């Protein structure tokens, strides 16, 4: 390098230079330790200037997205292959129907095949449910069915209006649960997380559209296990 940088060494860390000048600075500091130190000092000052900005707390969703992005080899926890996922999802849908129609609808049990009845029994005797709180100007209506022991959860949304992604906070940190599968006017996702899910948000195009906190144990929202 024949010359050191002038004021550009201090202007560069503030993002004040045009792109072509900024590229020249980057090329220069790659081979000039003195100017690289000046640029680094400028960055330190810029970070101090940021300390006086109004604080904005990051969302859980951002943490989840970054964590998953740098771990491309890991996938969100899924039900094991031995699970009959479709059968379980079907049972969850039946359970939702029971919630909506009231227990009198159980008269329909007589009309169901024996296998389906068994699945429904397993589901409604061990899970809680929660309506998700709508978020944003264009929210989505959604519910979560989840095992009281945290071993599984099923998210179902009405009129998703696009691809929905479920992001969760678990006892072991944030997890990207994956994208809800759309079928007709609803979308659903069955997950068996590695750690108990404490809260969950649904995102559409990076914007949170619904959120919920999961309460475990014999909550009042659980489906009654009646005869």
């Amino acid at each position, binding site marked *: 390098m024949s010359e050191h940088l*002038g*004021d550009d*060494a*201090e*202007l560069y*860390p*503030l*993002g*004040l230079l045009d792109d072509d000048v900024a590229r020249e600075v980057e090329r220069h500091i790659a081979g000039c330790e003195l100017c690289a130190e000046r640029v*680094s*000092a*400028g*960055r*330190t*000052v*810029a*970070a*101090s*200037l*940021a*300390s*006086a*900005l*109004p*604080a*904005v*707390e*990051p*969302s859980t*969703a*951002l*943490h989840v*997205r*970054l*964590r998953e*992005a*740098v*771990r491309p080899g890991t996938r969100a926890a899924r039900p094991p292959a031995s699970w009959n996922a479709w059968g379980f999802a079907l049972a969850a849908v039946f359970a939702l129907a029971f919630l909506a129609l009231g227990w009198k609808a159980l008269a329909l049990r007589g009309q169901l095949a024996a296998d389906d009845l068994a699945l429904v029994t397993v589901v409604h005797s061990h899970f809680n449910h929660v309506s998700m709180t709508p978020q944003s100007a264009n929210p989505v209506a959604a519910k979560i069915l989840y095992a009281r022991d945290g071993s599984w959860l099923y998210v179902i949304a009405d009129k998703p209006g696009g691809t929905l992604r479920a992001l969760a906070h678990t006892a072991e940190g944030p997890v990207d649960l994956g994208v809800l599968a759309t079928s007709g006017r609803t979308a659903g996702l069955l997950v068996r997380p590695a750690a108990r899910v404490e809260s969950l948000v649904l995102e559409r195009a*990076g*914007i949170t559209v619904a959120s919920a906190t999961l309460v475990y144990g014999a909550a009042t929202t659980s489906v009654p296990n009646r005869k």
Partner: protein
Amino acid sequence: MNQPAPYAAREVDPLVEDFAARRPAGLETAYGLWSRLFVSIAHHALGDRARAEDCVHDALLRVWRAPNRFEGNRAMLKAYLAASVRNEALAILRSQGRRDARELRAARLVPETSVDPPVVDPVEAERLRAALARLPEEQRIALELAYYGNKTHVQISEQLGAPLGTVKSRIAMAIRKLHAELAVSGEARA
């Protein structure tokens, strides 16, 4: 007593080592320490939380995946990432042509007038305010317009009626003086 050496006193900072080696733990720790700083920087420039978080996401991943390995200490890593987020935010502003509208809003958020809302780092902000107060007024104003107002040096030149070279020199001098004042305890707080 057989206590381990203080974290900051170790010869090799595991955070920097993990980040330079692109181990997920490096980004995870950096995010845990400085995510509020990064989102606040992006939000100040973009004025929208969702866009700010997208900006932070893209900027951090770009650094993470860059072919050049980071070299330096923890304070330098923090500053490097913060600068990357700000540059990403400014690039978004430029590409979307919203800079003028944001400047008007952002210009009202200089430290002297933003004492009511919580700030990113109150202790550091107080040190900064004291250091800014010791700058010559023309340097302080030029720097504040550049950083807090998100203005280019051309725009500052027009606003202040000062030659472009003078504005650049004022900003550069302000940076050098602030670094000299803040450097003493800056690394200890990183």
